[in-house]
């Protein structure tokens, strides 16, 4: 629960610019994610927050500016490259395969093979190891209301599916997890579970960037809130320093914030 603002940011964006023809989607945007925190990114539709997130997760290559991971400049040309550097993204539309089981989904695209000749020549999957690690991760995140790790994902509820997607990011994300509207499609009770899960992941040491439209959710879990407006960061506040309506006012431009009042 303790964020370390005195340390170097894990992930930092400086002066990012992305133009589509005459439209500037990102206009010299900055963002900093510190170790151990949940940074919420909010903004009106069209504010450019999804372009910013795409740039951070490798789905989009910015025209200008730099991205620093642990202080080192990095460049991603694809989501795979970002992932290899330890940045995992949980997508809004859940990148899970319904017909495959939980363990298969957790390791999809990154399967483990058996050691020795079975793995190298016969390319045999180490299903046992994958199931064990999947089981351990699900248990660690408090997701073991899910009965059976070899159960097809389509037999799970929406929140449980989201749990699988989050568990996958926690399993492989060594540096940062980016979550795009993880509660958007869920009911009240399911949302609650996913929010707890997000906190659980943060408490296990992975900093999280959370994109959400849902103000109560944001104010509940976020340590800091990055408000995006007109392609750049309008303010960075905390749930303690501002109220929800103030956040909305900043988001829509009804309230101006000078940089000095922004939290850490």
């Amino acid at each position, binding site marked *: 629960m303790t964020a370390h603002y005195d340390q170097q940011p894990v992930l930092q964006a400086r002066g990012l610019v992305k133009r589509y023809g005459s439209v500037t989607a990102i206009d010299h945007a900055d963002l900093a994610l510190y170790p151990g925190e949940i940074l919420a990114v909010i903004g009106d539709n069209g504010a450019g927050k999804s372009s910013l997130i795409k740039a951070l997760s490798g789905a989009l290559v910015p025209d200008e500016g730099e991205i620093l991971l642990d202080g080192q400049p990095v460049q991603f040309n694809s*989501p*795979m490259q970002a*992932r290899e550097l330890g940045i995992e993204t949980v*997508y809004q*539309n*859940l*990148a*899970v*395969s*319904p*017909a*495959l089981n939980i363990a*298969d*989904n957790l390791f*999809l*695209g*990154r*399967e483990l*093979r058996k050691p020795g000749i079975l793995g190298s020549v*016969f*390319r*045999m*999957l180490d*299903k046992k190891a994958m199931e064990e690690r999947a089981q351990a991760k699900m248990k660690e995140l408090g997701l073991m*209301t899910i*009965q*059976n790790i070899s*159960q*097809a994902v*389509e*037999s799970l*509820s*929406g*929140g*449980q599916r989201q749990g699988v997607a989050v568990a996958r990011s926690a399993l492989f994300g060594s540096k940062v997890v980016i979550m795009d509207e993880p509660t958007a*499609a*869920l*009911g*009240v*009770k*399911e949302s609650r579970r996913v929010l707890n899960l997000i906190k659980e992941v943060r408490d296990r040491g992975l900093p999280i960037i959370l994109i959400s439209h849902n103000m109560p959710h944001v104010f509940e879990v976020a340590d800091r809130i990055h408000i995006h407006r007109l392609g750049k960061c309008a303010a960075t506040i905390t749930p303690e320093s501002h109220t929800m309506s103030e956040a909305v006012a900043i988001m829509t431009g009804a309230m101006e914030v000078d940089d000095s009042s922004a939290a850490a």
Partner: protein
Amino acid sequence: MSSANPKPSAPVLDHDKVADQAGSGSYVANFESKDSALTRFQKFLHKYPVAAPTIVLVCAIIGFSLLVGDRFLHPFNLSLVLQQVTIIGVIGVAQTLIILTAGIDLSVGAIMVLASVVMGRMAIDHGLDAGFALLIGISVGALAGLINGTLITRFKLPPFIATLGSWNVFFALNLWYSKSETIRSQDIANNAPLLQWLGETISFFGARLTYGSLLMLALFFVIWYALNWTAWGRHVYATGDDPAAAKLAGIRTDRILLSVYVLAGVVCAIGAWVLIGRIGSVSPQAGYTTNLDSITAVVIGGCSLFGGRGSIYGTLIGALVVGVFRNGLALAGVDVLWQEFTVGILIIVAVGVDQWIRKGTA
């Protein structure tokens, strides 16, 4: 196959899970009561897609043995059924791979015939070593698959249209290259007996198995292994199930699709070798119905035409169901037209059951 065991479907009914679902706002209505027997059966079939065709196969075998008696159950007759389904089985392997990716391949039969003509002409007309002729034939199959795969992945054509076109193209090439002439069985026997080797039989307990049938079973095993025990297999299922999700998970779906079409082409070319063994000669007109028969076997075997669902041995069972019905009806003295009629009903019922299963758990 543990698919006959209904027990594993039980956890689905667990109280925790029912309560879980009740708490979810994404459900418009919830019923606290337990699932009805029909719903449970539906879920069971959903979990084990091979269960339905297996039940049909077992019922058909019991039914025909009661109807026609010992003649049907005789090992010789059963091995005859296996021989009769060998080609459909091999081509069905290729078709299963493609249908698992939510595609369809209408050109499998044409690829098979084209490859068989190439094998025959290379060995007989050009006097190449039979083994080498086989390799060239298999390369032609791979190339044909590569063309289909490229049309679908690079030019984004729907598989149905791409392979409808290539079916005609391959068939025309086959008529052109063969000059519409059949290569006689004696010529092959004298000059390239290897091409007919798969038609030879081994006997035990009155059953007569061809090497072709054994090769088919081996092929099923190899592809089963690849689909279930390698990352490639997981990716084939994921690609067919939800291509967008597979892509987000980092799978290069175009590569998977391309590999599937090339592999299907190779399997069709192996089918060409089996075909030569079965009919002895090489005919540009042979195996004309194989296309649709292979789809029939896959569909009856429980594979979903929507992709990502089904298993490879379901296709073997599907092919056997068709074989058993045809053989049993023939032994019962029923006119051939009623065999076609029955197969047609089986297809419609199989697809209907698939729809029903999918609806129940969506």
